[in-house]
């Protein structure tokens, strides 16, 4: 059986259109690159100053000056380019990025996102997340449906400090595919074998269940 992370990455990768510029966050979102359909050309952007991210270089072939925003060595595809950080965030805030994929600590019914700080515990800083969530034309949260303890992460209202207000468009977890709408969170697709009762039990926010609910592939 495929694991949760792969189920999520696979579904997110099918959201892109040919020619989209996409920024992937650190961790689970990075996996999405492996599942982009072969007939689609997606241009990956890295906020440290790179368009056209390619696969991880082979051992021994790393360029010390070419990394992604997570600090890992990467390659550059033909047609790729480098630029400074002001240009990079002009691309991001200027709505030139079609989609950003990020993890979350909490998301809520209004599309609020918290993913950068747990006061008193984890204070890594926001890095580029606040700019990405405000600037990308589509904000996709890719995360496991609950915390490691099984507590809901999709809430009525976020409790942690926000990354941005009302910017999340889509939430993909191992249980389903959800869309944030002005009416609330609509469950569009469920993973095979998952029931509406199970997903509701693991979600604090009120889920809207449409008649045309389908199976998530």
């Amino acid at each position, binding site marked *: 059986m495929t694991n949760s992370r792969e189920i999520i990455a696979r579904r997110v990768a099918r959201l892109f259109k040919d020619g989209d510029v996409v920024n992937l966050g650190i961790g689970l979102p990075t996996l999405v690159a492996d599942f982009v359909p072969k007939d689609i050309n997606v241009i990956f952007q*890295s*906020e*440290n*100053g*790179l368009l056209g991210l390619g696969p991880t270089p082979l051992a021994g072939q790393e*360029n*010390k*000056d*070419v*990394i992604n*925003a997570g*600090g890992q060595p990467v390659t*550059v595809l033909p047609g790729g380019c*480098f*630029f*400074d*950080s*002001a240009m*990079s*965030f002009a691309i*991001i*805030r200027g709505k030139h990025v079609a989609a950003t994929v990020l993890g979350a600590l909490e998301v809520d019914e209004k599309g609020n996102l918290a993913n950068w700080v747990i006061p*008193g515990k984890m*204070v*890594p*800083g*926001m*890095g*580029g*997340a*606040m*700019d990405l969530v*405000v*600037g990308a034309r589509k904000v996709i949260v890719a995360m496991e449906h609950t915390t490691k303890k099984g507590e809901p992460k999709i809430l009525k209202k976020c409790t942690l*400090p*926000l*990354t*941005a*207000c*009302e910017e999340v468009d889509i939430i993909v977890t191992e249980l389903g595919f959800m869309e944030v709408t002005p009416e609330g969170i609509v469950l569009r697709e469920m993973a095979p074998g998952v029931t509406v009762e199970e997903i509701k039990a693991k979600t604090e926010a009120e889920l809207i269940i449409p008649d045309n609910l389908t199976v998530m592939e």
Partner: protein
Amino acid sequence: MINKVVTLEETLSFIQDGQRIMVGGFLNVGAPLKLLEAIYEKGTKDLTVISNDTSFVDKGVGKLLANNQIKKVIGSYIGSNPETGKRMNDGRLEVELVPQGTFAERIRCGGAGLGGFLTPTGVGTIVEEGKEILEVNGKKYLLELPLKADIALIKAYKADTFGNLVYRGTARNFNPLMAMAADLVIVEAEEIVEVGALNPEEIVTPGIFVDKIIQG
């Protein structure tokens, strides 16, 4: 044209306790490591470091931090260096966290003679605390102010002796912005060439911004 190439020892005389220092680099890539090592050895104290991140515990800016040489950090990310968070929590270090795009643009403003800029980033979050919020065409923006420094420490791939700079890969990051935003700009270049050897079309930082150059 003026030859700005100096020795590492000469540049150290410009670095003083209590200065505000911009340091290029992103997770240590594009960071002027030789200059940082020299400041570490000199033991300059009470520095305010303006840098995207605090590198790693035993590298670059991280070494100065662990050696108690930094009193304040302004940047966007401290997660790669646990020592930064520890010192912030026990009050030994002041940390000002700035969204990365805002950080870059504040530095650009500092060097470009602008009084600030309006950004949608941070609206409705704790980043907006204490800032002016302006509404333009029905949309809310935060007024963010320029960042400047006494010294900028820049890492370049190639420099000519006048200070025209070329970068390589993602090592460019904040370097070209910081090179415009400080009173004194010191460049560490992997390779130094004669004036005229660089193609004017490929120069990213014009040499007029640069004061001193050392061999990296």
